[in-house]
């Protein structure tokens, strides 16, 4: 064998490749969305699910930084809790088929679903970018606490406070990542979703996002 693919690019090189791939996926999905007629809500959700799965898998080298939480939050805000829960569950399961599926998938789906519900519930108040960014950052911490509940199956409740305390740096990274994704993605995502909404929200009004 020639070993033509035996190139050691290192962790930074691999991360750069992954970010390039994610940019390519994002660009291709954006082009696909632009080609859709208005009102294709579930098709848009499918494209967002693909972006969420790829985003989580490709950004795995970065600790707890991925676009899924902000995606689910914005879907909750714009399309309602039911669609956010569906998206959260599909992304959790789809990404874990690559990254590893187990009982944690249930808690991840639950955590992201709660973020989506929070987005739907708080939508009337999320009228400016700083508010959305703030709730996105808070969602990172909320998600981390929900995920931490999975240790109840193995270590028991006595270890839960220590486990949550030890995970605070990771929660902070998640919060900062969400701040970044909210600042860059929330407005374009919200505009995209407005264009494709056919049925309006169960509990909240459609709220445009302004910078």
């Amino acid at each position, binding site marked *: 064998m020639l070993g033509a693919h035996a190139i050691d690019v290192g962790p930074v090189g691999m991360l750069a490749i992954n970010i390039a791939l994610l940019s390519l996926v994002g660009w291709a999905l954006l082009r696909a969305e632009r080609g859709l007629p208005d009102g294709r809500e579930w098709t848009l959700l499918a494209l967002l699910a693909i972006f969420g799965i790829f985003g989580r898998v490709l950004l795995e080298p970065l600790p707890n*930084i991925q676009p899924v939480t902000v995606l689910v939050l914005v879907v909750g805000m714009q399309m309602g809790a039911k669609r956010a829960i569906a998206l959260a569950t599909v992304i959790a399961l789809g990404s874990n088929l690559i990254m590893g599926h187990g009982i944690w998938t249930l808690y991840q789906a639950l955590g992201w679903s709660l973020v989506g519900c929070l987005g739907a519930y708080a939508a009337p108040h999320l009228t400016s970018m*700083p508010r959305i960014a703030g709730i996105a950052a808070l969602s990172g911490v909320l998600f981390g606490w929900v995920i931490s509940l999975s240790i109840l199956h193995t270590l028991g409740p006595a270890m839960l406070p220590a486990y949550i*305390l*030890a995970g*605070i740096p990771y929660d*902070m990274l998640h919060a900062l990542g969400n*701040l*970044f994704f909210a600042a860059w993605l929330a407005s374009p995502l919200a505009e995209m979703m407005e264009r494709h909404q056919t049925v309006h929200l169960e509990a909240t009004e459609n709220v445009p996002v302004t910078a």
Partner: protein
Amino acid sequence: MSQFYGLAIFTVSLAVLIWFTLSSDNRLKGVSAFLLVMAVISAPTLNQEWARMTSELIDDEGNSHNGLPDIWLGKQVVCVDFPVGAAHSDYADGRHYIDYDGTDFMTETEFNGTGACVGGLSGYEDGFGMLLNATDIAEGDLEVVYSTSQYGVMIETIGGVDPCDYHTCSSTQGAYWSLYHNNAWSMVGIGDLVLVEDSVLEWKIETW
């Protein structure tokens, strides 16, 4: 820790600068991107500092690391227990825990005695090599004076403490630095001791 505070001040200062430099539409984008890059770069350091700050002592009699910080589980450790009043002045207030990079991150003031443990070590196979490296990490406060003979390496003093300064030494009685390996008295001297990946060495003065 000072390195951590320096990084925090630098990050906040630059974030404020970016905030006021950019237009109002791009402020959040610019600052969030900068903060994310800084967080990713400094994540290993921050995680390590946080782990040290939140570390707790292991309470498990059956564990060779019992009484040591939980972040050292599975790692190699060297402990020196000094007689009362004989510790180096830096260790006089209890038992100090010093990580592999020389950071003195925890002091157990309720420890019955004084001393220091250097831990978080890995990859050592011979006890003597790990002991000498641990003394280097403690920046000389645990300096070892030893002699060699046909019986192997003999530890004379650790941290300047000679056992005979605290116990009567004569032809019929004496005191020495006694070595324990994973909570058991070592049957061989430090020069012949073969380590495992989570070895805990403990030195304490005993009499004969």
